[in-house]
């Protein structure tokens, strides 16, 4: 599983730190860090919560194209 750079950039666009996002969705900062680094596969509920906070769709943040998956 590759790094989720789209989550990182969406978070940066909203000017949010990992801690801010973590507090907004009710998880630890380590969990957000693990998702961004591709070390943890979040549940669909957590994905939806993250997308709602960032104002994006699931496709925009979590859908992996073949090119992304190979990274």
């Amino acid at each position: 599983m590759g790094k989720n750079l789209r989550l990182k950039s969406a978070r940066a666009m909203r000017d949010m730190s990992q801690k801010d996002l973590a507090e907004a969705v009710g998880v630890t900062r380590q969990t957000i860090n693990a998702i961004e680094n591709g070390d943890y596969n979040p549940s669909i509920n957590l994905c939806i919560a993250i997308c709602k906070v960032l104002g994006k769709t699931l496709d925009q943040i979590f859908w992996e194209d073949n090119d992304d998956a190979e990274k």
Partner: protein
Amino acid sequence: MMRKNELDEMQIQKRNRIGYQSFELLTCLILLEMVLNGLGVKWLPYPTNIFLITLVCNSIYLIRVVWHKSLAGPKSQGKSFTWKLIFIGGFSALLAGFLIFLFTGNGLKGTETDGDNGLGAIILFSCSIAALIALALINIISKRQDKE
């Protein structure tokens, strides 16, 4: 809506995995102890040997859970760690004192099963102190990691 006062999903996943591994370790160590006992190797009297094995596995479980930040949920992580340490230390000291009082000539004097007068209490107390030191070190490391 996710509840902030509990562990998040990654913490639960990690804690469950660590718990499973610790339980497997406990089973293996008790089995090993049984084999050694059968071969005539008696390193500690019963039930202190089983107690010590359980205590070691429990300590490993706790240390690993703290190391992976899966002991407290997202909301409670900002709370002071010092009070927890004081509480655990005080409770351990009280329990150890009570056990020493019970097994060294006051409460259960003269029973045939207590061949390890005060040993269990000393083990409990020393293991608690070791666990507290480990927890304090892990807390310091975690704070440094958070700052980075």
